């Protein structure tokens, strides 16, 4: 689908009306599902994903058959295995496209998320066990990997699995695809599906507030000179995403204390409950 991105240079507005450094609307909920240990729902623009976490628990008999990319070791090792299972619903994209479980693209997403989370979760506390993360993609509009990582992070927080910090992800791109226009190229934050089709882009995830990059995936050709700018914008976006995720978790926590679902803990008295 050809997209006329040349209009960007006229008003410096993108196809959906954003500036170069603006995120799309991010809406998230945690504890959406009572039966699971942890669950979350996340929207980044029109990309909508759901995540359900079960565990850490003893690995079941079906282990290994369907889990994608066991980051952090198997069931017999000292660390818990993070098994990620992604289901991309047939109705999620504009044209219905069904992907089998053995799809290479899905397997790659699974192992990326699994490894990123295994590095952040304290898996050494749960030897001989498995953390099952199942992700459901309900609607796709770009930045799929970023949305999946954010949703998985929220669900792990909800499940109460100890972790170093949030793994917050977002995408970054560059406005121009050809080398001649080097000085006129702007980096773009949080790409939608149209932009992903047309422009080079990368997905970056950072650990909490730091600049430490946990995931960096680039699937398109891009000039080396642009990479630095894109990465800087992406890391900056991750910090914004982290703030949003943190706000979601805190709001839910306050709500649960107010409703009396959980006891007010020690040291929480000085926290303002607005």
């Amino acid at each position, binding site marked *: 689908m050809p997209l006329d991105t040349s209009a960007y240079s006229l008003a410096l507005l993108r196809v959906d009306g954003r500036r170069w450094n603006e995120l799309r609307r991010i809406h998230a909920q945690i504890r959406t*599902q*009572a*039966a*699971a240990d942890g669950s979350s729902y996340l929207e980044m623009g*029109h990309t*909508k994903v*759901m995540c*359900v976490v*079960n565990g850490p628990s003893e690995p079941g008999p*079906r282990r290994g*058959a*369907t889990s994608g990319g066991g980051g952090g070791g198997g069931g017999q090792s000292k660390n818990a295995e993070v098994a990620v*299972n992604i*289901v991309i*619903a*047939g*109705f*999620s*994209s*504009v044209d*219905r496209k*069904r992907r*089998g*479980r053995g799809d290479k693209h899905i397997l790659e997403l699974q192992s990326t998320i699994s490894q990123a989370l295994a590095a952040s979760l304290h898996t050494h506390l749960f030897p001989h066990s498995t953390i*099952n993360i*199942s992700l*459901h993609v*309900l*609607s796709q509009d770009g930045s799929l990997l970023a949305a999946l990582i954010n949703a998985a992070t929220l669900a792990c927080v909800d499940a109460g699995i100890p972790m170093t910090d949030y793994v917050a992800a977002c995408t970054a791109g560059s406005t121009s695809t050809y080398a001649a226009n080097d000085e006129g190229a702007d980096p773009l934050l949080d790409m939608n599906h149209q932009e992903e089709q047309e422009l080079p882009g990368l997905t970056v995830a950072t650990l909490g507030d730091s600049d430490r990059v946990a995931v960096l995936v680039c699937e398109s050709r891009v000039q080396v000179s642009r990479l630095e700018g894109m990465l800087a914008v992406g890391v900056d976006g991750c910090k914004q995403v982290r703030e949003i995720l943190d706000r979601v978790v805190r709001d839910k926590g306050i709500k649960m204390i107010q409703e009396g679902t959980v006891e007010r803990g020690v040291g929480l008295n000085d926290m303002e409950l607005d």
Partner: protein
Amino acid sequence: MASSQHVLLSPAELAYLHASLSLTPPIRPDGRSLTQFRPLVAETGILPGTNGSARICFADGTEAIVGVKAEVERTRTGHDSPSLDDEGAEDDDDLDNQQDVVKGDNDWVEMTVEIPGYRDDDAGTVFLSAMLSEALLADGEFTKRLWINRRFHWKLYLDILLISPPLSYPLPLLSLTTHLALLATRLPRLKSEGDEDPLFDDDWAAAPYLYARPVQKGSKKTASAPTARPPVTLLVMAVGNNIIFDPSKEELAVADVALAVSVGEHTGFASSKSTEMDIDTEEIKGYHNLRLLSVRTIDPPSRLTPPGIPNASNSAYGANAGAKDTEKKKQQQEQARTAESEAVEGVWKSPRGGAKTLVMAALVQKVLEKGGVADEVLDALDGVDLN
């Protein structure tokens, strides 16, 4: 995904559960009445990218999402009818029989079930989707709704996602969600006429529902204004002579018989010419005109449960104590064998053999009776706001 989930109940617990469920009136573990369903949360129209979508959450935490997507597809012409694309001369007499060519094909509906942790070619998953699509296609009326003209038709894709881990047998949940999603499904309004290439109205607000809604919302429908609706598949089980609806996982673990009963609503115009199908119709005004679409027995997990050992044959209780000579031992082994095959009061034994005919008849009767469970379920689903 099999109906036989690993139920962690001991034979003694199973015996207790079985006994309390076969009382009159029975006592269910969660205190529900026989026909009472678990509370659920339902919403429709959650995904703007689909033609229709629904989400249902049961109280036990299981959750499902169904999305319906439609595509226009060229109808394949059979070898018996002339190719419709390059005909010109016989247009005139084709116009005469245009009314009775409205027909459907079961290939026009594609249903997939996704259950996390299970492969999509897993026998249980395939069985689930077969049961759900069978109910939908049973009367042949559904696919007629997908007919556009003689050259084109809608191809409907139903994607059923179970979001939560399968805690109880998910059939009723998936069926109810599919029902709601189909009720919420809208197809663009057709602007072209006859056998032209189809052209549709851009205005989504003008798009008609796949299942036409009654004009007055909220008012009780009467037999004079029949509205068709998609089928509902209910899970029913029997313990002794008691018939229990919407069993939980624990209840299913002691079921003598488990049935999946699909119920549809009979509409006025539906021609019951087809004789291959066995259609029971009850026409009562003020209630839904229910008809039975399909019945499937489900292998209850109770068959795989370990049996209890009666005291008579339990050596820990001195059954074999003092059995020194072989004569006596043999006798006691004989006794033990009869004890194993015969039911002992208060000792769990997994049910064997099929369902009793009378129980089966009562089961189906109970589903179809006026003001019965199916009626109640359909009424409750009417209350869900379709947007």
